[in-house]
């Protein structure tokens, strides 16, 4: 297994190199000019040109890519064009809110999505099943920002139970930290809950028709252990896969959620960087997200061996 892990981590290097080239090339051909944004609306064309030269944006593609790639190899993500701060520092500053949001959302989604998926499969065809699947369709269909605004309106403005925006670091206490994350996590988690519930239901339906389930019931086991111990364990591989895939959904959703709830995380950093054409920041964040995604896929692959002893690498 250790050899597999090392091999997989080593395999991320060419993946990251391709991502780096792809991101850099896309940004190079994309319209927009950070020099124009920095210069401001009243700047003269000569000012813009001078800033562009100062930033080295007038140099050829290969020179700029080579310089940036060399920096990356040395572990340096570069400096923000707009703030003149190191990109790694800016990312470090923003990582806690995003990580917090993703962890709370993930816990919420798994703890809600899996049980309701199991129940829906158990009561397949019943009213309860239809209600759960109806909820799942709703979760898929309603955009994150609509859910976000509705939650903020009801729970922040009308009931004053929770704040409408912002983020409190975990160092200020679990209570205040969680208070700011409840609404964003529900808004972001809805689509994820729907996805997990549907996959869990479909997989469980298949497993529940297996002979060993009938046997365990015949042996007198109650429904709880049958569903959650025997059946769910055997349905776990596709569910874990979809949880892993869903992290990509979370990353995309976090960008919108952080804007709606004014959370100073990586999602907002990405949007701001794109609007300002702050190339080093965009490149740094995309590289980080790609790396995280590759690692999560690795983790999912490793979990397969735990969940299904037949799988070996």
């Amino acid at each position, binding site marked *: 297994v250790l050899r597999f892990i090392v091999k997989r981590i080593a395999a991320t290097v060419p993946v990251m190199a391709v991502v780096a080239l792809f991101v850099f090339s896309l940004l190079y051909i994309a*319209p*927009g*000019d950070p020099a*124009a*944004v920095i210069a*401001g*609306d*009243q*700047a*003269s*064309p*000569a*000012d*813009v*040109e*001078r*800033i562009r030269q*100062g930033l080295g944006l007038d140099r050829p593609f290969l020179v700029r890519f080579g310089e940036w790639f060399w920096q990356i190899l040395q572990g340096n993500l570069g400096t*923000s064009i*707009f*703030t*003149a*701060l190191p990109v790694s520092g*800016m990312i470090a*500053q*923003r990582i806690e809110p995003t990580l917090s949001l993703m962890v709370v959302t993930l816990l919420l989604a798994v703890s809600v999505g899996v049980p309701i998926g199991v129940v829906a499969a158990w009561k397949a065809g019943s009213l309860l099943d239809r209600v759960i699947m109806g909820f799942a369709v709703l979760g898929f269909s309603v955009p994150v920002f609509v859910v976000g*605004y509705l939650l*903020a*309106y009801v729970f*922040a*403005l009308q009931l*004053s139970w929770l*704040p*409408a*925006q*912002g983020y409190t670091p975990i160092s200020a206490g679990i209570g205040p930290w969680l208070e700011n994350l409840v609404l964003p996590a529900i808004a972001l988690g809805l689509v994820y809950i729907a996805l997990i519930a549907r996959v869990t239901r479909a997989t469980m339906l298949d497993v529940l028709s297996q002979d060993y389930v009938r046997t365990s019931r015949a042996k007198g086991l109650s429904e709880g252990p049958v569903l959650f111990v025997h059946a769910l364990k055997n349905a776990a591989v596709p569910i874990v896969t979809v949880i892993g895939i869903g992290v990509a959904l979370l990353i995309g959703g976090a960008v919108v959620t952080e*804007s*709606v*709830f*004014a959370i*100073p995380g990586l999602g*907002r*950093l990405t*949007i*701001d960087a*794109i*609007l*300002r*054409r702050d190339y080093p920041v965009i490149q740094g964040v995309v590289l980080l997200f790609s790396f995280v995604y590759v690692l999560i896929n690795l983790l999912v692959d490793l979990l397969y061996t735990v969940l299904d002893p037949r799988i070996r690498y």
Partner: protein
Amino acid sequence: VVRNAAALVWDTLYGLDDKLVPQRQMAESEEVSADGLTWTFKLRPGLKFHDGEPVLAKDVVASLVRWSARDPMGLMIRAIQNELVAVDDRTWLWSLKKPYPKMLLALAKNNAPCSFVMPERIAKTDAFTQITEYVGSGPMRFARSEWVPGAKAVFERFADYAPRSEPPSWLAGGKRMLVDRIEWIIMPDPATASAALQNGEVDWWENPITDLVPVLSKTRNVVADIADPLGNIGSFRMNHLHPPFNDPKVRRAVLTALNQEDYMRALVGDEDKLWKALPGFFTPDTPLYTEEGGEILKMRNLEAAKKLLAESSYAGQPVVCVVAQDQPITKAFGDVTADLLKQLGMKVDFVATDWGTVGARRAQKTPPAQGGWNMFHTWHAGADCLNPSSYTAIRANGDKAWFGWPDSPRVEAAVTEWFDAPDLAAEKAAMAKLNRAALEDVVYAPTGFFLGYQAWRSNVKGIVKGPLPFFWGVSKA
């Protein structure tokens, strides 16, 4: 945004008050020689930077050198400068080759770049390179450790700040801070900002969108009012380098067909108090405002416009109209312009894009078919349009002019006349000539004057209307 934050951290030698008159701020006195060629300034005693060092004349000189390399008025002074030197710790001298009557306005204006004073070692940074140390002598110090770029900036009261004794008036007078800490939170979403203000999570919202103001006005403990009486001037610029707008007749045809009410309604809806027709280029209700030559904008005449277009060199080519969709103002203006051009009988190539792309594309001088453009929309802060001093968009000096590169010697002559004007009457005469010439040559197309709102919690007192948020004199119960 940077200018607004900077006004807390850095102080200026002079400050423009709410009557638009330059007043002494860090400066204690000034003397100008009888021939108008030598200015001798003196600093107020007891001024300190946030690092505890005293503010000295050498810091002022270095700051003015940096500022004058970038600012349009600074560049004019630099062009006629003999020397700029510190005479002693509190005195500096600026000698010129010809008189510059607008010296105090240049040092007091609130348009970026402002002549902020910083320590000499920082001011010596190349004028086109961002400074990395934020040490000023203003009433608040920047809490850099709490800065989350794009999300939050924190300012703490500077205990050693020495305010003037006069009452505060915009950037002039005593900048007394009544709060110890300002948390400046950036919220990208207006609905979130509105909820935060209604919920009491924030105290003051700088720029609520018009659509949300009725909700805010109905909320208990929230007050909404006009933010800046100087407002904004909407505009679209035509590219004078390429057909069809290289022909003044085509530009005049567009201006003749233009109805400013269409633009303003698209932006502010039915709120009549938020807009005014603007038959000219300068901020209404200010001392130098003029409507000279504004007849062309006072009454829309589509038939006359079509006739003018028929007499012009327009050959049916598409007008490449670049419109930023991520800015509500330019989006609204762009939709109206597309309709206007079609009514006029012109073909439109509507390029819907974002502001970042507009910023890059408008700098292209190539023909529209090769990545250039014919038209883009923007707006100008009314504070920038009081006179020609900081009004980059009104200049018509060809290659050196703002995007669109208008070339009109008579506009430039009127600008020079204003700079040289010795008194208010002469300034007004120059402004009238300038307004007429800029309209006749259609430097750009003004789409109207509009105002915006600000909103705050009712326990916050002392908020004034102005071109930037002034935090001095503001208290929170």
